[in-house]
């Protein structure tokens, strides 16, 4: 505050000061809201300047391709994070869905040929698993962290049971066509992930269910008092998350043409980070689909850029960590009363 402003402020009445303060706060809020976007722009600029290939169409396609699966995962996970909960079963669920779908479509180890129905079965089972997680979490009153971790273990085990050690290779022409197909140069898998994302965004922003999730994450007691069925909403969220995890698993299987329990390995935490980067909160009630998109994009671009730069993989993770801490510091609201744990 410069001196002139200081003097001016001293002369103001409290209510005038209050108005000034409210305006300042609103400004800060705006900055905070757009911080992820600003970060994205800066990142993109740095990427473009430092790497000549960064803006090449091929690299842009790469970025789109590489963000596809995180984007699909983020759809369900962002609902879970909005509740202030977590779902650690995503990785196991992905591995299971990927292994199952490989088992069901044309492959090298059996004579199944369920085609698109195989895909549907895998996704429905993912949805059912999510429902079970939600059910155990809400009805059993067990912290989501633990339930979902345990269910994740179970699903990983179940995935290996499907193929008993020798991962299944997918030979299905549909899978091959989808994984290699392009529309206007954009991979089908990316288009599918965008479609899933848009459906997720519509659910989040244009349905009563979406609003109920926001309400529960912000103030569970108040939400309950307006008559929202908390338990059912939470179970639905986990079902959705299981469903998108399964879709991600199927897509991953399409990408690699291989069914294996570790298809989902290390896929979840980067997405949590991406959601937080976009301004979401792990304690619930904050976030949005566009923000999530921006977050996933930032994360993918960062990884892509560091690869183009030839940075060592482990150092890459450290750099990512530091950038994330800085970004979150900038986007998190700070006042004395903020409670963090």
């Amino acid at each position: 505050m410069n001196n002139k402003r200081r003097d001016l402020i001293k002369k103001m009445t409290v209510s005038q000061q209050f108005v000034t303060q409210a305006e300042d706060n609103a400004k800060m809020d705006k900055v905070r809201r757009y911080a992820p976007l600003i970060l994205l722009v800066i990142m993109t600029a740095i990427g473009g300047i430092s790497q000549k290939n960064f803006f090449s169409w091929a690299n842009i396609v790469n970025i789109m391709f590489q963000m596809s699966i995180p984007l699909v995962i983020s759809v369900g996970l962002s609902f879970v994070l909005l509740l202030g909960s977590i779902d650690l079963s995503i990785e196991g669920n992905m591995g299971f869905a990927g292994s199952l779908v490989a088992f069901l479509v044309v492959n090298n180890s059996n004579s199944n040929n369920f085609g698109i129905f195989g895909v549907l079965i895998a996704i429905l089972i993912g949805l059912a698993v999510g429902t079970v997680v939600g059910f155990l979490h809400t009805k059993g009153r067990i912290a989501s962290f633990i339930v979902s971790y345990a269910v994740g273990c179970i699903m990983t085990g179940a995935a290996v049971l499907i193929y008993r050690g020798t991962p299944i290779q997918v030979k299905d022409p549909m899978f091959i066509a989808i994984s290699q197909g392009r529309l206007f140069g954009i991979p089908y898998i990316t288009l599918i992930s965008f479609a899933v994302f848009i459906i997720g965004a519509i659910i989040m922003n244009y349905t009563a269910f979406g609003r109920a999730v926001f309400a529960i994450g912000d103030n569970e007691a108040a939400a309950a008092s307006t008559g929202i069925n908390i338990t059912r909403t939470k179970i639905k969220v986990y079902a959705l998350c299981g469903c998108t995890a399964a879709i991600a698993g199927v897509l991953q299987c399409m990408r690699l043409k291989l069914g294996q329990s570790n298809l989902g390995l290390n896929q979840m935490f980067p997405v949590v980070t991406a959601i937080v980067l976009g301004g979401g909160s792990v304690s619930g009630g904050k976030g949005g689909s566009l923000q999530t998109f921006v977050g996933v994009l930032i994360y993918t671009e960062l990884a892509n850029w560091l690869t183009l730069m030839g940075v060592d993989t482990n150092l890459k993770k450290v750099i990512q960590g530091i950038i994330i801490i800085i970004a979150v510091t900038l986007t998190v609201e700070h006042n004395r009363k903020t409670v963090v744990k």
Partner: protein
Amino acid sequence: AGFTAPEGVDPSEYHLAICIHSMDNEYWAQEAKGAQLAAEYYGVEADILTCDSDDNKQIQGIKDYIAQYGDKAIFVVDPSSTANTVNIAETCEDAGVYVSILAHRAEGLYPADYPHFVASLMLDDMAIGKATASALFEAIGGEGQVAELQGLLGDDSATNRHAAFEEALKDYPDIEVVDSQTASWSQSDAMALVENWIVNYPDLKGIFSANDTMALGAVEALKNAGKNGEIKVSGCDGIEAALNAVKDGDLVITNANDGYCIAGYGASYAIQAALGSLDVEGMDPAERLIFCKTTLVTADNADDIISKFIETQDPGYDYSDLSFCIDKYQEDTAEAADEAAE
């Protein structure tokens, strides 16, 4: 040929623990299968113990198994890491149970120093890595840009194969390595890396991969970019998908590590020692340090290998003939062992 246990020994009282990393990998599954076949052959019971590449978990599993079966336990171990081999040897020695250790051996660890450490069966990673790398370099005409996909940092197969790659480079001065990164044995990580490389290095001609899984990821990325065949890829391990890829010309070369051989014969050494039909103390120390047979796989022999290893799930080895698996002895190290023994 049949096998008869010595007088008074009932093989079915013995229990073989097949200690591998996980069931979630074709090569390890093959090892498990090979050791099971051997156990069946000798008539001993077999259990599989997995450790998810965790040193501590592996030792824990071994101790638990010893607790259960005492001196009737037998071990064939694909160790979680090289460093862990000493602990494995010591633990088994303390408990007086026989063990063969596969594919890894810490520096200074010799079977000769441990009466119950029957044999160390290794893959000659250096030779294999050099052979696959050279085949790759030849395939691209001995010059041009290549990139390397390394295994999980911190894993010693990854380290050995990287060293072999560097070694092979010495003979090819015109090969330029544009990037060398780890994809942590993961197909999906490898795919992402290769996607970026294709963009960044338009003149890339070859990709050396430390294992088949990553190589297959590279092939998928190339297929998507329409560069399959244009950029050559080499793998290692000999998993089914890779063998097929070699057959189809997607991979230049891979090496069939042959889990049936290394684990089956590893198990056989330990079982024979435990049943008393192999006199461990009487063996030449050098004979307990073995490099196992493996096969380089190119388009020429891919079909044979597939029918032998994949389709039958049993290559039909005679597990009573212990010498069958021996490619050569780990001779340089064997000499050192002799010195140590003196």
